[in-house]
């Protein structure tokens, strides 16, 4: 036998008790939506997981009204320290239920269990822990003393990191004193609904967190709702642009976290084995469904062949298959629509003259899959070098000098992230200084921490999430009158203990 054909090591699904249908989570309880319910399937098997409600306009009204009530009556009046207690409690519940959440995420999204278990869910807990600590320290958020919360936040999140994006949105909003109505992506609502159960378990006052499910129309209704004070969106640039237009001229404060086409720049003095790992992690992590993915590899011409060779042999060791198997490296593509897009753009890449190489791997019969693919001989004018593929597809370009690397890296309408690989610290700093990207990783890639702000330049969006900047997005400077009031009263009785 071959040792490398590791025996199956599936994570047990026994821990997950899915209901046959899920309603909307409004005002602290689940209720049926008025829209047509839709099926949630596993992208790895196309099997039916559960049925999920659709929120129509009336449901959106109800959710926003619940959030407004909770904001006016409880949450905005509560002391920061008490809000923090609730957030700490949520963080601990996420840890307690981490295995269940990881299984649900992998089942619903298609990402490998090793990623949901070791990356997504631990980061979710970290995000709540981090912002729990901010709740009573808002004076230090950079907006002066006694900054004010905004009110009701409408939050729409994507399908690539369903629970993590929820945490990125909800944790800072609640810490700052806002209440939220959140809409998860249509294909990945499951963990948001499990999170609603956690919210109940944590005994959060009803209406502070509302979760409504549905497709694009639900999101449009939510974002466009008159009684919403803040809009936070993570997703594609076209949708982000539409949201920006719809909120223009209103009082709503907006953060947008959109697409990217990150350059991962490898200089000839890079620590080569770690750079290969970083390239792999940069583009094949989460099947490349990452807005900050290092989808454009810029490699110094002198080491191009060696890097591509090593990359190919490394990719040949990646395991594609059952997301719940603990040894799976590459899971399923989230939806057939996304798979079609990846296929279409890859075909265009080939037609434009780039050279395509695909790792040999067995593709399961059912479900949506795309084997890790590299395009060499790519020019900046190719569409695969310009457009976001949002899949396991890497475009390899070359450069000769640092100046050329910087010019090519910046030659994109996006600017979310970038990577630099070099053993020379001064070069890393000099290049990083000239890259127009919100996050720059040096000798690593796709590392996230709640203390670090994250966001983009240009068409990658505006506003920052994470760190002090992330909490500031959900605050405004105190109104002059409010600043004169005595310090906010502390509501301890009946609050989280």
């Amino acid at each position, binding site marked *: *036998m*071959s*040792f*490398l*054909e*590791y*025996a*199956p*090591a599936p994570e047990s699904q026994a821990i997950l008790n899915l209901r046959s249908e899920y309603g909307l989570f409004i005002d602290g309880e689940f209720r049926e939506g008025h829209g047509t319910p839709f099926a949630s399937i596993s992208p790895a098997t196309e099997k039916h997981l559960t049925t999920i409600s659709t929120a129509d306009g009336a449901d959106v009204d109800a959710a926003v009204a619940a959030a407004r009530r909770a904001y006016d009556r409880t949450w905005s009046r509560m002391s920061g320290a008490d809000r923090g207690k609730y957030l700490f409690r949520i963080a601990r519940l996420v840890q307690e239920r981490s295995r269940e959440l990881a299984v649900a995420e992998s089942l619903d999204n298609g990402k490998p269990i*090793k990623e949901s278990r*070791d990356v997504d869910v631990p980061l979710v807990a970290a995000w709540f822990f981090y912002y729990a600590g901010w709740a009573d320290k808002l004076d230090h958020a950079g907006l002066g003393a006694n900054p004010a919360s905004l009110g009701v936040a409408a939050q729409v999140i994507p399908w690539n990191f369903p629970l993590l994006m929820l945490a990125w949105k909800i944790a800072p909003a609640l810490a700052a004193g806002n209440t939220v109505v959140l809409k998860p992506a249509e294909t990945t609502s499951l963990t948001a609904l499990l999170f609603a159960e956690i919210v109940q378990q944590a005994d959060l006052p009803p209406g502070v967190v509302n979760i409504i499910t549905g497709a694009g129309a639900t999101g449009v209704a939510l974002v466009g709702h008159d009684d919403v004070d803040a809009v936070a969106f993570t997703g594609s640039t076209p949708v982000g642009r539409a949201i920006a237009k719809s909120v223009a001229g209103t009082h709503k404060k907006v953060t947008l976290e959109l697409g990217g086409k990150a350059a991962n720049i490898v200089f000839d*003095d*890079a*620590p*080569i*084995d*770690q*750079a290969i*790992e*970083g390239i792999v992690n940069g583009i094949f992590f989460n099947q490349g469904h990452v807005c900050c993915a290092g989808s454009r590899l810029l490699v110094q011409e002198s080491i191009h062949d060696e890097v591509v060779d090593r990359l190919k042999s490394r990719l040949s*060791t990646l395991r594609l298959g059952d997301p719940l198997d*603990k*040894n799976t490296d590459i899971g399923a593509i989230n939806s057939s629509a996304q798979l079609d897009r990846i296929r279409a753009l890859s075909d265009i890449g080939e037609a434009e003259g780039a050279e395509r190489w695909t790792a040999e791997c067995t593709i399961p019969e059912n479900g949506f899959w795309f084997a890790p693919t590299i395009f060499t001989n790519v020019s900046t004018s190719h569409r695969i070098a310009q457009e976001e593929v949002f899949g396991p597809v890497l475009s390899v370009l070359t450069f000769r000098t640092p100046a050329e690397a910087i010019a090519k890296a910046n030659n994109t309408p996006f600017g979310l992230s970038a990577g630099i690989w070099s*053993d020379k610290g001064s070069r890393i700093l000099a290049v990083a200084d000239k890259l127009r990207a919100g996050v720059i990783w040096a*000798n*690593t890639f796709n590392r996230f921490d709640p203390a670090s702000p994250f966001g983009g330049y240009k068409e990658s969006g505006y506003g920052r999430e994470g760190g002090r900047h992330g909490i500031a997005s959900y605050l405004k400077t105190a109104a002059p009158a409010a600043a004169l009031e005595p310090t906010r009263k502390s509501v301890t009785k009946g609050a989280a203990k």
Partner: protein
Amino acid sequence: MTGTQIVPGERAIALLGGEANDANLRRYLHGIPGVDAVGLEQRAAGLGTRSIKTTSKAWALDRIIGLIDLTTLEGADTPGKVRSLVAKAVTPDPADPGCPRVAAVCVYGDMVGHAVQALGSAHGDPDQGRIAVAAVATAFPSGRASRSIKLEDTADAVAAGADEIDMVIDRGAFLAGRYGQVYDEIIAVKEACRRADGTYAHLKIILETGELNTYDNVRRASWLGILAGGDFIKTSTGKVAPAATLPVTLLMLEVVRDWYRLSGDKVGVKPAGGIRTSKDAIKYLVTVAETVGEEWLTPHLFRFGASSLLNDVLMQRQKMTTGHYSGPDYVTID
């Protein structure tokens, strides 16, 4: 078993394009890409999360036994202790005749004769199911002796019947940048491994990575050991902490892989010291298989230098057949 038949120095001259002196070696070793410590450790940790179950685990446990250099390196070693070690090596689990034998026993030079005698007909090439005798030499573990003493030490062990010599490099010279001296010494020891019939004892080169301190140094020392003609590169003596770690072993395997890509020569790797549990040992098997390929998981290309590891593997083996854990009194001590 027989070491490589290459002419000492041949590897280096071809690669360096000149004599293997301090300047040329330095130019080459310092031109190798650096190692990013964080990235290396991350990769090793990632490999450590592979989940090896059922049939794969059963195979892995048996293979681990077959890759062990069962070791006793104590000042208190006696012929009796060595005989006991050999008995354990030949019959690791008396309750299970199907249990594989270890690859080799590893002893001090003066114990080689006793080990050979105790092994009797079981003595031979581990690739053919027999057990080799490995001897540490060259003023192990510190290596602080004159070259003539080190060579004598080596020749002595080979003459007594050692199949494999585990030498230590001169870490002092390496850290002082005297690469030529380290290189020359390995070449000389390799020569001292030559038997009367012209064959060579297998040479394992102990880098003592715990004293080299940085991954960049480990990588350079690995290249140096290979260029000088080592059949194996080995992490540690087991007398210095830290001994073998997964990141260090991964790094050495990467050098071996790169050397193979460059030359077509296969060099072995031996992590030694500190690997005590089956769980850890399986992580090493995964790292070997996913870095250089599973064809490296044979006794002439990969070994574990260990003593207490064997009994933990035996307990795991028993658990796989009986379904429950036994205890330390259900496996024999050597």
